[in-house]
């Protein structure tokens, strides 16, 4: 077995893959946060809660209704997205004219409510969800054994991220969306239904989070607390990357996942904090974030 800095390559590559998996979740979540922030001017604290709901609903779908992983992958984001649209209409739409801090506080409250409800129902110990059978065998690449499910998570996350990028940057709908982000009033004056766009954007951003939740269900402990533990790291990712650029959010998310994975190999004590340390360093060197524009 070959070694690098006293660490076996198998362990190193294993953590690298795991880092990419976590990075995929970072990317999907920070992407959703950035899209929502652009349109609604709200930092969605409940984003982690929706990710958790995505995972728990996947578990519920299987155990209560016998709905398989593959159906959940399509249905759960749809259902959670609809719930998000209802929340946007019922609660968030009243906040757009206020300081964005109120949006943060309201969604924080929502996160507490969701977390509390699911904690009350399922406890905190974690629910088991087995990996779909297609992925049970690891893939032998010759130099390492690659768990197929991890490869699938990375692949499908990348596809979804880049599809989102394409949708926003290269299509007509995306152009309208960007116009509405830039100047909502003027866009509305051109006859575009901006409130509808805002509503759908929120639904879409949340559906991304729920999608990440479904992907996470077989690899992570499904627990009501899984969202809040992740979302704070995602906030750090957003601060590091800046919310100005979609590609920036994706790249930063993946990169930080990898860095976290490598830290777990070389200095495990810091693996929980390394993202925050990097955030502090980036603030010192480039306060606006790596891909951010200077705010006024």
């Amino acid at each position, binding site marked *: 077995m070959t070694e690098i800095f006293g660490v076996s390559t198998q362990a190193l590559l294993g953590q690298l893959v795991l880092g990419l998996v976590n990075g995929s979740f970072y990317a999907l979540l920070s992407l959703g946060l950035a899209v929502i922030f652009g349109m609604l001017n709200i930092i969605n604290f409940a984003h982690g809660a929706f990710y958790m709901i995505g995972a728990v609903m996947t578990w519920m779908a299987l155990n209560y209704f016998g709905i398989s992983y593959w159906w959940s992958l399509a249905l759960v984001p749809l259902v959670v997205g609809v719930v998000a649209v209802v929340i946007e209409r019922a609660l968030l739409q009243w906040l757009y004219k206020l300081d964005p*801090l109120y949006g943060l506080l309201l969604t924080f409250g929502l996160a507490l409510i969701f977390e509390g409800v699911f904690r009350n129902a399922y406890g905190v110990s974690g629910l088991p969800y087995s990996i779909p059978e297609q992925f049970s065998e690891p893939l032998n690449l010759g130099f390492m054994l690659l768990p197929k499910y991890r490869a699938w998570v990375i692949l499908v996350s990348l596809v979804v991220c880049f599809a989102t990028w394409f949708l926003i940057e290269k299509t007509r709908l995306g152009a309208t969306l960007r116009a509405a982000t830039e100047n909502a009033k003027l866009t509305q004056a051109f006859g575009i239904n901006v409130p509808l766009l805002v509503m759908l954007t929120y639904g879409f951003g949340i559906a991304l989070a729920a999608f990440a939740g479904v992907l996470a269900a077989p690899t992570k402990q499904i627990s009501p607390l899984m969202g809040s533990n992740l979302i704070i790291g995602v906030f750090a990712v957003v601060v590091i990357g800046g919310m100005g650029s979609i590609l920036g959010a994706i790249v930063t998310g993946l990169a930080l996942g990898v860095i976290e994975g490598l830290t777990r190999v070389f200095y495990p004590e810091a693996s929980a904090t390394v993202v925050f340390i990097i955030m502090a360093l980036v603030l010192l060197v480039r306060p606006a974030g790596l891909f951010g524009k200077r705010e006024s």
Partner: protein
Amino acid sequence: MTKRRLGYGLLIVLALVAPYAGLYPVLLMKILCFALFACAFNLLLGYTGLLSFGHAAFFGMAGYVAGHGIKVWGLPPEIGLLLAALAAAALGLVFGWLAIRRAGIYFAMITLALAQMMYFFFLQAPFTGGEDGLQDVPRGKLLGFINLADDLNLYYFVLAIFIFGFWAIYRTVHSPFGHVLKAIRENEARATSLGYDVDRYKLLAFVLSAGLSGLAGATKTLVFRFATLTDAHWHQSGEVVLMTLLGGMGTSLGPVVGAGIIVTLQNELADKVGSLVSVIIGACFVLCVLAFRRGVVGEAGALYRRITGERRS
């Protein structure tokens, strides 16, 4: 002004006799600790317009410093509290120095992330006792002769600390320095153009707020004789935001009222609804943000002004 002084005097008298009116001193002390915490937080959110989502780091860290100092180093309680407050202020200097580089929503996210980093540090550091927390901190003797193991003695000590903290914040807010803070809250660009070094003012407010939050956290450790991770958790940061919001941010007494309501609520509900407490706290958040943004004291003040027809000064 005399009316206001009379009001505060009356409140102090009420606080002095409260333990004899059948109120449980430990609950009162808990309320006072959180009230001081919320007042310190309000200095930042209510008067400077900075939303920190990481104040639990100061509250929790001071708890550990006080606990460790008193238990392991054998410091007298007053020195332990002072040391803890200074440590929290020092941490506030670092956090503030980093966080004021960004404004608004980013400021909140940065403070939250930094506090989470401290949380993981406390989880792993040897002196905190990890998941178990720092247990059996002795209350000791104040100035060497007042036995704080007696709840009533401790109550008056905690009340004195609270009044000192409240007074310090009140003085700060009503000083020329405080007026600059309010100017920054209202219009940062204008404050800059008037020649104020806005960043320095923000940082100083942050450090003050962190130090006083630390004093509150250290006092709580003295009251309950332990320091745990709960105090450094982001839930705690959220709770202090809620206390301030519910009571009325930017009012002197609002955070005290908010802390009183939330602590009493938790105390009443903890046995009855278990983990649904966080659902209720969350619902309070949603309601406050949607319909009650001025908070209890803010709404009461507005009502009072409408009845008396007095104009806002």
